[in-house]
């Protein structure tokens, strides 16, 4: 570093402190100006809300008492920057109380359960969750029964509401 002039007059310590502090404050402001907007932007989905939408599934008489039916349907949903036709599945089952609509997502970590009619059970392929025909946990790690969607019957048609 021989090319450098030796540092001249000893810098006033007070001056160093004050100016150093100002630089520090400016730097904090800069960090805030970078991080703030980006975090707000990237975290904005945390505010997203689902809204209930009713869809018509099928004729009521198509499902017999005690029967479990897997129904595929699609709904137009907003997926980020565009609206898409998204496919969903639910299980309908007619019990004494009426028609139940069970969501196929396992309440453990969300794998899709499968209905095995010979065992009359919903089986989750992931970590071995087992639910009975009304969605109650029979074994495995799921912490709560299968989610139910509200059902209404209007004009002989089964309607369910799903949050999208």
């Amino acid at each position, binding site marked *: 570093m021989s090319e450098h002039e030796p540092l001249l007059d000893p810098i006033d310590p007070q001056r160093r402190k004050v100016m150093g502090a100002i630089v520090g404050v400016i730097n904090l402001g800069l960090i805030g100006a970078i991080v703030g907007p980006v975090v707000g932007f990237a*975290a904005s*989905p*945390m505010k*997203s809300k*689902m809204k209930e939408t009713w869809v018509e599934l099928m004729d009521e008489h198509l499902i017999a008492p005690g029967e479990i039916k897997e129904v*595929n349907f699609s709904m137009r949903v907003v*997926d*980020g*920057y*565009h609206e*898409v036709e*998204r*496919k*969903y*599945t639910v299980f309908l089952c007619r019990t004494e109380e009426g028609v139940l609509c069970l969501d196929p997502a396992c309440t*453990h*970590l*969300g*794998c*899709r359960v*499968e209905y095995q009619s010979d065992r009359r059970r919903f089986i989750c*392929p*992931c*970590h*071995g969750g087992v639910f009975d025909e009304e969605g109650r*946990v029979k074994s*495995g*790690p*799921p*912490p709560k029964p299968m989610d139910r969607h509200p059902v209404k019957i209007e004009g002989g048609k089964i309607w369910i509401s799903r*949050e999208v």
Partner: protein
Amino acid sequence: MSKRPTYEPHESPSLTPEVRVDLPREASEQERLHLDRPAFRDWLELRVGWYGFVRKNLDEPMPPGVGWWQTLGNLLLTLLMFQFVTGIALAMFYSASPETAHASVKHITFNVTLGSFVRGLHVWGSTLIVVVMVMHTLRVFFWGSYKKPRELTWVVGVLIFQVILGFSFTGYLLPWDQKAYWATVVGTRIAATVPFVGDSLLLLVRGGPEVGALTLTRFYAAHVMLLPAALMGLVAIHLYLVRRHHIAGPVLPQRGRPVPFYPNQLFKDAVVLLVGVGMLIYMAIGFPPALEGIADPTGTDFSPRPEWYFLGLYELLKIMPAGYEMLATVVIPGLISIGMLFLPWLDRSDSRHPARRQWIITSGMAVILLIGLMTLKGILETPPPHEVPGEKEEVVAAK
């Protein structure tokens, strides 16, 4: 060699004093650097310091006993280069939206020249990096090389470890096939098991309530921007610290003096690179990467499974009783991460010898055994992947 004094080894045995007398006096390094018309290397040396840097690295002292186990870090660096380069190439053909992602990966795999190979390098490279990284970590652990003054080298290493796992998790979704989709549905739900903030965290990770277009762009941004930037910074710090403290010798100092990195250790490094990269290329050609059917939220003929090195966690989730899944998703992985991060301070013993730090070695082995057994169980119990039958023929025929 006498014309290149900047490269001269410490004590060159071939230059006997008598020979030296006959040589003309050489310009000193300073003189040469400042000549009016310097040689190119001297010109560059003054401005960049390149040769000094290379020489310093080639002369890096290796304590006796350093050998094959110390080549893994360099293998990791090389594998990372492969990931970066193949990743850039893939990004030129990849398109991150639910409508196009699967088709673009299919195109890469079946139509683009060398597409399957480049994708294979990237896919197998990720697996190889995890394997080698675990080996590197284990060697540092058993050698006790994380001890003073190398604590922060270790801490940065643990952060690198997590970034690498982040790469796998985000990269796994990108092909938008069945296994990508379902592994991410389940994997992101793990966020929801965090107490209190779980639901918001799930929205943050997914970019919305369901795995969809915004999950894909989010994961893509992380995979190609955020994580690479973080990784480059961390690896730079890691290497700086490794050089600053030099490589630690064996746990019991061995007789002899340190030797320069070049040529002995560099040669070992090169051999290991040859084997490692050879293996990578062999895997990429011999076992081309698969692509399953496009993500289908309604499909049933599918049992989701994560990347193989997450199978341990997956198995742990299976054996957790209802209501305790948080243990497997947050508590146990969290404790292992914290334990790893703070290992240099948990281990109070002065000695690096394994026999002198029994409880650390014992608990380390227990954790390794647990992860190993769970992973093995996961591998044995997972059905083989089902591919789209006839996909390849169909696409090739359509060309």
